[in-house]
């Protein structure tokens, strides 16, 4: 809502605050000040008084000559917009070119709608800005959704009145009724959507440009002057918050105004020239034959007030807010009227606003026919709230004097009766947002000042603040990965459909947004891969380099028809030549597996078996794996692999890309705290022995490892651990063979092991490996050149 200091002052003659103080008060009472402008910014410059010296009427258009000192200008004006010859008219300049418009930023048109008449006391050549506008200040105020009443000068002035404790003066709304017969009838067929509809008939209308003060105030409040009738309805709407509509009464067929719901497919050309296809149930105003306005949203073009209009039907109504909102949204419209109806207008202010407009119309020569056409009642019931004063003081944490509180409420329009320490508060009709005692507390607090709230701290006992296992694991993993040289990223969880297609993720399992903003963000990611790959792509495009990225984030899918969301960890490694001083470790599939193992260790579970397996079609066939859970459950704990070079080429990504995704929630569920037990440190020395074996190249390490583990267990060896330290192949091994070298560490808890005993165990292990027929000891191997 836009309002100027001087317009506010018209409602608050005793206002003594300076404009910058007014801005401060609005902000302190809950109205964000979006902008404070000088009135000068809104008007053309210079703005001078000229004289209309000649007017030659040529049908609908009139050729006018305007004199300004020595200069004369010839302009073509719509005949309805031409004042009497000899009167003062406004000559505004835009970039030194006369535009005849007061509003800044509008280019002169070939044919003007009007010449704006000026009060006769101005001399030709007078600076209109100095004389009639002066140093006014415009406030652009943001009004919250609960305060429909403040989409009006009246509402905002009332806020200042409460702050300053000064009276509020309503604008003049008196007019004379004339016994004019017009024959108009009202029919309200939708009282549930329009509880109150009123109409007035005004005749002897002459449509012409508004007087300067109305044009000026409309411009200050952000609207364009059009003609005196439309301007009056707009001005009253801005003043009182009640939208009004003036129909050209001569164009209403059958002298009948009907309020009814639209039939599916009915059409209406609105004032903006658009043809609107109406849906069943939209509320409209119709005459005997057809729709003539979209109730509460916009009038129809055919009944628009124009130059020829001589009589009008003035509508003032209370439309259902939901109905107006739905209609406006369905048609993609948002008008000054719909914005006010949506938030709710003052049910008792409907007829008062109409009266104000009638008074102004009468001032312009209109004759008001006696009698209201009324259908329905103002939808208003008295609402009273009991507020113990103690509640105000306690909730606000400040000692507001009760007298001060009552004063504030009364200035805001509440009627207050005191019953001991309790106030009985009667809510004004324009404040349907105030319904409970706490709402009254807010009203007092708002005006008294949030700055006076005394800070305290809720004193009940603290939560012990234990960090849940999942969260602490997540944070430890994040720290680990960041310290290992990866960058943490945060990406959008909405991705492109195609990026999910390439992962071969099925249609029924997807979670699709029904109303996406763009195709780029249409599907909720079922894996983190699309998001993380996009990060690599962005950086590749910009010529950046990095070892890789990781993200902890949610993925989304449907399972058995239900939505599911799951927290995942995604790691993407990017092997690309880097300008580095010191050599870095290589990046390959085993770097990826190394991360998996480290994370398993951080979780306290280790990781389960890792087997070849390709989940994403974008992975290399033989370069992908599935990691099972350490508990051996059916659901895998993660998936990894090397991204196909062709896929990288298609997206202009250089180098190699490896990807790993881990189901974090599962991981956190398995880990356990260290069981409480007695610690024992090894007291006797360990003995280590190395074994070197040769196997077929297709034999996995796991085969040898499990044999060693089983035999050690079967023979009750004191084998503490064993670890692979080399995998070798090529000369001197024959082709198709490879070797494993591993170290065994023996330790007994209760004695020093003898060499001889350890020797026996090693021999036994060697024997059992040999027995499989698939393992040859390195030392017994007959090599090619031996």
């Amino acid at each position, binding site marked *: 809502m836009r309002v100027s200091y001087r317009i506010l002052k018209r409602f608050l003659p005793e206002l003594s605050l300076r404009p910058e103080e007014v801005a401060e008060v609005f902000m302190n009472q809950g109205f964000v000040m979006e902008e404070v402008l000088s009135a000068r910014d809104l008007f053309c410059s210079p703005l001078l008084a000229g004289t209309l010296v000649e007017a030659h009427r040529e049908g609908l258009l009139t050729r006018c000559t305007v004199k300004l000192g020595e200069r004369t200008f010839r302009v073509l004006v719509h005949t309805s917009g031409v004042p009497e010859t000899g009167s003062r008219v406004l000559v505004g300049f835009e970039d030194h070119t006369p535009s005849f418009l007061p509003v800044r930023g509008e280019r002169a048109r070939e044919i003007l709608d009007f010449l704006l008449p000026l009060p006769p006391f101005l001399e030709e050549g007078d600076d209109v800005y100095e004389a009639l506008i002066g140093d006014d200040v415009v406030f652009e105020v943001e009004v919250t959704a609960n305060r429909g009443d403040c989409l009006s000068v009246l509402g905002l002035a009332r806020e200042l009145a409460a702050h300053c404790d000064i009276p509020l003066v309503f604008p003049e709304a008196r007019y004379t009724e004339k016994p004019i017969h017009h024959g108009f009838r009202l029919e309200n067929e939708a009282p549930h959507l329009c509880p109150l509809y009123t109409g007035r008939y005004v005749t002897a209308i002459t449509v012409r440009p508004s007087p300067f003060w109305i044009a000026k105030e409309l411009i200050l409040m952000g609207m364009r002057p059009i003609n005196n009738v439309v301007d009056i309805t707009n001005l009253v709407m801005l003043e009182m918050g009640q939208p009004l509509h003036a129909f050209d009464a001569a164009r209403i067929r059958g002298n009948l105004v009907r309020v009814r719901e639209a039939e599916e497919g009915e059409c209406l050309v609105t004032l903006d020239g658009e043809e609107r296809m109406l849906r069943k149930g939209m509320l409209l105003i119709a005459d005997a034959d057809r729709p003539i306005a979209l109730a509460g949203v916009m009038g129809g073009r055919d009944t628009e007030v124009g130059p020829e209009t001589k009589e009008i039907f003035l509508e003032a109504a209370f439309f259902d807010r939901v109905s107006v909102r739905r209609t406006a949204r369905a048609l993609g419209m948002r008008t000054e009227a719909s914005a006010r109806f949506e938030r709710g207008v003052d049910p008792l202010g409907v007829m008062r606003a109409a009266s104000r407009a009638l008074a102004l119309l009468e001032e312009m020569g209109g004759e008001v026919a006696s009698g209201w056409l009324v259908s329905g009642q103002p939808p208003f019931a008295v609402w009273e709230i009991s507020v113990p004063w103690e509640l105000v003081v306690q909730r606000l944490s400040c000692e507001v004097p009760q007298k001060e509180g009552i004063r504030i409420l009364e200035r805001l329009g509440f009627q207050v009766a005191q019953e001991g320490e309790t106030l009985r508060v009667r809510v004004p009709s324009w404040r349907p947002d105030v319904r409970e005692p706490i709402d009254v507390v807010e009203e007092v607090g*708002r005006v008294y000042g949030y700055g006076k709230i005394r800070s305290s701290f809720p004193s009940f006992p603290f939560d012990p603040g234990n960090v849940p296992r999942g969260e602490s694991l997540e*944070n430890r993993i994040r720290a680990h990965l960041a310290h290992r040289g990866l*960058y943490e990223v945060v990406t959008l969880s*909405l991705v492109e459909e195609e990026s999910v297609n390439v992962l071969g993720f099925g249609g029924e399992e997807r979670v699709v947004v029904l109303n996406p903003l763009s195709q780029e963000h249409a599907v909720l990611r079922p894996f983190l891969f699309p998001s993380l790959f996009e990060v690599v792509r962005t950086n590749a495009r910009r010529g950046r380099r990095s070892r890789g990225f990781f993200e902890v984030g949610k993925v989304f899918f449907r399972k058995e028809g239900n939505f599911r969301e799951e927290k995942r960890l995604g790691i993407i490694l990017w092997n690309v030549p880097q300008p580095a001083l010191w050599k870095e470790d290589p990046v390959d599939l085993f770097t990826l597996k190394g991360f998996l193992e480290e994370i398993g260790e951080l979780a306290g579970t280790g990781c389960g078996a890792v087997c070849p397996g390709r989940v994403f079609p974008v992975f290399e066939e033989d370069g992908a794996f599935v990691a099972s859970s350490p508990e051996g459950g059916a659901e895998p704990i993660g998936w990894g692999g090397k991204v196909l070079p062709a896929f990288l080429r298609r997206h202009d990504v250089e180098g190699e890309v490896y990807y790993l995704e881990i189901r974090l929630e599962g991981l956190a569920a398995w880990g356990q705290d260290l069981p409480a037990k007695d610690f024992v440190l090894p007291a006797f020395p360990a003995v280590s022995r190395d074994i070197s074996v040769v196997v077929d190249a297709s034999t996995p390490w796991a085969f040898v490892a499990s044999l060693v583990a089983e035999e050690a267990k079967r023979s009750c060896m004191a084998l503490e651990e064993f670890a692979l330290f080399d995998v070798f192949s090529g000369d001197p091994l024959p082709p198709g063979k490879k070797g494993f070298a591993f170290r065994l560490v023996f330790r007994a808890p209760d004695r020093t092991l003898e060499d001889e005993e350890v020797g026996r165990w090693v021999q036994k292990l060697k024997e059992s490996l040999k027995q499989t027929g698939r393992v040859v000891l390195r030392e017994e191997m007959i090599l090619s050149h031996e």
Partner: protein
Amino acid sequence: MIEEIEEYLRDFEGELAQVLTRDDLNRVKGKYAGRKSRIPLFLERLKTLPLEERRIVGRRLNEVKVLIEERLREKEAELSRREQKREPVDFSLPGRRHPLGAFHPLRLVVDEIIAIFRSLGFRVEEGPEIETELYNFEALNIPADHPARDAQDSFYLGGGFLLRTHTSPAQIRVMKKLTPPFRVIVPGRCYRRDAFDATHSPVFHQVEGLVVAPGISMGDLKGTIEVFARRLFGERRKVRFRPSYFPFTEPSAEVDISCGICQGAGCRSCGGRGWLEIMGAGLVHPQVFRNVGYDPEKVQGFAFGMGVERIAMLKFGIPDIRWFFENDVAFLSAFKGLG
């Protein structure tokens, strides 16, 4: 005799400590270790001692002899080290190290917010990103077709589900799960149907806070937020409450902190306002309590919600919200060493 040997050792140590040159060393060596030293004399005298004593003194004498020789060798090595002129180590060379990565600024901010509120006795909860319309709106006193929904244009998934437009539905979940009194924060991701620009993103993050206990007041809210804001932004910052409107709080407030650059006077970085908006807050609306089966006569509460991106932008001076989601290495690497 044993005392004489000990004294001999002490004298030796004393003279050895004075040694600065090779000549000094040779002199000390001749005096205490060579054939002309007193060692042969001691050995001579040893023979005169009774058997029992001879063994004890003999062992000590041998120890002293070995010790003297060892100390002389050490000294010699020290001297030759000193004589040999060596190049100093170039410690300006870089160390052998792993490159470091970094945490994302949004996560840094959330981690810090969580740490602050934990220290104030809050617990941390999470809520789903796919929410019901009921929890996202109606339970929070935001009816259908209400203008308050304008600011929260949603992505719909069908079947009454949507992507939550704020973390506030977690208030409902928390109240259904816990029994008052409690202090909770809920960090999380939210979605609004806003096109990307410098200050809007269709995906963004919030931290919701909720405290429910008998007698909670605006003062409790203000006191808590003041502590939080000063810890996050610095002790010198002032906190200001302005009335506002949220359907699920009453009274409602916007919380501002004074601009860190001009301290409230108004400057270019705060658009001349002097204050920066950091969150919305208020006392829990009685209707919200009724919606979850609490009695608003018996318990009260306050709630707040802040935009993580906004706070990170203020804290780190980031001009464009899109930078958070582009994840350009040039951007991410600026946060090394934080967190």
